[in-house]
């Protein structure tokens, strides 16, 4: 099987101040990066991921750190699988807790349930945006949120 192209960000930030460290960490988390080792993160390469990591690299440099962007592929299929499996496992966990929340919300009073539905839909969109290797749990989360929407709609009739 041909290997996937990946984009890597290698970076180092001064330990202090902590504000840029936290900002960079939050951005990387939102992008759904795989952490290879400390200071080295990866995403499957596409037009969007390369650009997003480039902006983070600029932010690191502006904060007095060092950063470089590399395009690479894993030297072995096992290595690539480890990276992709790790990403899928952590996103699967997010889908699972979303599905649980949607299930719990079925028992909420109508107004509260409506608000929860809106929040969970937004959360599902956020998770999907950083899901590069959709695990089976993605479908479960979608069904759970749809189920909550159906219940909410039925209650309004």
């Amino acid at each position, binding site marked *: 099987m041909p290997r996937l192209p990946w984009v890597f960000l290698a970076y180092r930030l001064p330990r202090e101040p902590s504000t840029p460290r936290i*900002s960079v960490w939050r*951005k990387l988390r*939102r992008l759904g990066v795989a952490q290879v080792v400390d200071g080295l993160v990866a995403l499957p390469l596409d*037009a*969007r991921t390369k*650009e997003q990591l*480039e*902006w983070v*690299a*600029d*932010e690191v*440099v*502006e904060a007095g750190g060092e950063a470089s962007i590399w395009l690479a592929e894993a030297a072995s299929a096992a290595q690539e699988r480890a990276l992709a499996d790790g990403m899928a496992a952590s996103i699967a966990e997010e889908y699972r807790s979303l599905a649980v929340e949607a299930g719990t919300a079925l028992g909420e009073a109508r107004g509260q349930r409506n608000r929860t539905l809106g929040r969970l839909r937004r959360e599902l*969109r*956020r998770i999907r*945006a950083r899901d590069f290797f959709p695990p089976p749990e993605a479908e479960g989360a979608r069904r759970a949120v749809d189920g909550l929407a159906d219940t909410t709609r039925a209650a309004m009739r």
Partner: protein
Amino acid sequence: MRWATRRHCHVDRAGCAWLIRRQIDPDAEFLFVDDPDEVPPDATAFDMRGVELGHHGDHCSFETVLHRYGLDDPVLWDLARIVHEADLADERYDAPEAPGLDVICRGLSMVLDDPRILEVTAAMFDGLYEHRRRALLLGRDPA
């Protein structure tokens, strides 16, 4: 003047190009490059790594251009809210329009080359500007 940006324009680059032509340089000529090193010396680069008119702090390039050129039209800043969320989706602003704009721009980049993308999105941004201008005047979304 000549202006340079990266190939495969998405919403932030398309928005900047529209903004540059509208507010800064009506005769702007746009070049598309793969690498910052390919920017000719006489061209001003935007929405690329390491340039003045790029992302800075939490700002996308569209917001940076507004800042650097002192553009304080509230309608443009309202568009900046939408472009920022369409580009970054970091939920700094409430911009329900953004996911739609993001998808439209991504779709256009699959079927058009960069010069055509700028043409088509210019009309789109003109429309968006007019919509937001009327919304700000009315205090609600226009019909």
